[in-house]
């Protein structure tokens, strides 16, 4: 019996594609965010609220929306005249770098400020795959319970910001905001937390400010 040492990262092809996307967007000074949440937490609702506000701010953006089978989310955004490309992943529970590269080939990148990737609803798998984004955004909601940060630490560790949606439901659900925020900071001490409600609009402006800051920083970066 013999042993051959390999020591190879099995995600190397995905990571190589992600690096190419990252350098291409760096060259064109386009900020890309990868929005990850469980199904029903409010990713599409947030984009429905934030999209028109980003337009009003004069920000040029495109949305890549991931779904296993349907194009319902893309249709919701298209109804608001938001620029959107649908990514169907089939049975895959995440978007990988190859799918993003294919979707971006349908988009005019020149002149864009922002690419928003709405990943497939899942707190586990999307966090594993680098898609060339600048930042991951974790979206949680009060309806899911306050213990999710410790249950899904990889996503929280890799995210720059955590949005806590559905604050309008706080009086109806057993969600302990202090516990959730403490858990987020325990798992990722540097994480920024934004409380919001896509229903009432509370906190959406804070998210827009964060996006504007990130775009500004990207534009100021040296290529």
């Amino acid at each position: 019996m013999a042993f051959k040492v390999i020591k190879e990262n099995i995600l190397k092809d995905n990571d190589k594609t992600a690096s190419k996307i990252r350098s291409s967007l760096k060259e064109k000074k386009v900020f890309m965010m990868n929005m990850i949440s469980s199904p029903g937490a409010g990713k599409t609702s947030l984009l429905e609220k934030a999209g028109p506000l980003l337009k009003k701010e004069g920000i040029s953006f495109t949305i890549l929306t991931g779904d296993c089978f349907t194009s319902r989310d893309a249709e919701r955004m298209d109804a608001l005249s938001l620029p959107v490309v649908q990514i169907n992943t089939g049975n895959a529970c995440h978007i990988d770098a190859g799918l993003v590269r294919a979707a971006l080939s349908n988009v005019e990148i020149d002149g864009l400020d922002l690419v928003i990737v709405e990943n497939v609803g899942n707190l586990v798998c999307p966090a594993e795959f680098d898609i060339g984004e600048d930042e991951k955004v974790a979206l949680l909601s009060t309806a899911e319970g306050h213990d999710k940060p410790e249950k899904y630490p990889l996503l929280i560790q890799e995210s720059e910001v955590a949005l806590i949606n559905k604050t309008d439901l706080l009086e109806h659900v057993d969600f302990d905001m202090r516990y959730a925020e403490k858990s987020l900071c325990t798992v990722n001490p540097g994480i920024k937390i934004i409380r919001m409600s896509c229903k009432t609009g509370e906190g959406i402006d804070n998210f827009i400010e964060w996006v504007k800051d990130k775009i500004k920083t990207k534009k100021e970066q040296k290529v």
Partner: protein
Amino acid sequence: MHEMKLIESMVSILNKEVDDVSIHEVKEVHLEVGELRYIVPEIMENCFKHVPKSIKLKNAKLKVMVVPGGKEFTIKGIEY
């Protein structure tokens, strides 16, 4: 199910590694996976059994070693 996607990526690397005249049949593949990757080793081992692969890998078993608190996804090597 991201285990299948990961196994497909792993097999594409292995197919190249076993393209070596001194390797006739691979007995075992050693894979190191970090605990934070939320992998279920049994699902990965089962996916490996069923995914199309080189004839030299046909009877190989996948041995998944979970690293506490880690983020690895590394093929350590093959026994043949």
